[in-house]
């Protein structure tokens, strides 16, 4: 399970992506740093316990909930509230889980899950990579060691951005090592 939820894993086991070629090894699997999930987890927890305090809130404001909403509506409304909260939690998790950057020994594969119903996939062969750079900025990036890795390519998609990935310096090193290996093979076949 550690690998499944990992934001940085080298040679992950039991992972397969669409169109993965036979013998193609996944070298790196990257996601955004887990700390990115703190805002939606915190708000979900607060929203989960919020209905417990609505009665006190109505009493504090001097309102009678029975006069505003008929009693027989309340169970349905409460269930709908938790249904929407469940959807929010599930979709927020999916957004983190399926926003993956994969580096194999042949190519880079970028699955961007933007929001509900919007996701796109792009990939480029390692030979097409021209430049790899990274930067760490902001307090969060410095404290938790996450940053953005930019990969310039000569492929259809000119730039791949691995955003807020853990240990960007190491990611940069791994990709440049792979590139050096490929170029060495090209020079001495």
């Amino acid at each position, binding site marked *: 399970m550690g690998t499944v939820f990992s934001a940085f894993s080298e040679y992950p086991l*039991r992972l397969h992506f*669409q169109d993965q070629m036979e013998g193609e090894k996944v070298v790196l699997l990257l996601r955004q740093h887990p700390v990115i999930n703190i805002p939606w987890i915190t708000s979900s927890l607060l929203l989960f316990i919020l209905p417990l305090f609505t009665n006190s809130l109505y009493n504090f404001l001097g309102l009678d909930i029975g006069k505003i909403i008929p009693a*027989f509506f309340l169970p*349905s409304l409460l269930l709908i509230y938790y249904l929407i909260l*469940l959807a929010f939690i*599930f979709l927020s998790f999916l957004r983190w889980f399926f926003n993956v950057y994969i580096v194999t020994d042949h190519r880079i594969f970028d699955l961007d899950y933007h929001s*509900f119903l919007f996701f796109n996939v792009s990939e480029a062969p390692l030979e097409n990579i021209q430049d790899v750079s990274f930067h760490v900025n902001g307090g969060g990036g410095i404290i938790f060691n996450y940053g953005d890795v930019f990969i310039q390519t000569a492929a259809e998609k000119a730039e791949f951005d691995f955003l807020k990935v853990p240990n960007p310096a190491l990611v940069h090193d791994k990709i440049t090592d792979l590139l050096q290996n490929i170029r060495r093979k090209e020079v001495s076949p």
Partner: protein
Amino acid sequence: MTGGEVLGLFVESTGLLLARVTLIIFLGAYLVFSLMIVRQTVLLNRLLQTSLSWLLDLLSWFHLLFALGILVFSLFSLKIVG
């Protein structure tokens, strides 16, 4: 009963009916939304297969069944059916 009271009762009952119908339409639309979540999860799991894929599929189906359960519950509790 005065004319004003009759009008008041009419407005109240129409308001309640409108609220009931709106809630049921909302839940029907939500069911479609839940189906889209299931479909999207299946597609994403096809793109990236992990050991967690089955659980994500299961959760999306659970969400759909939860929505269906609430729709049925609301139909009975709001006395639209039964």
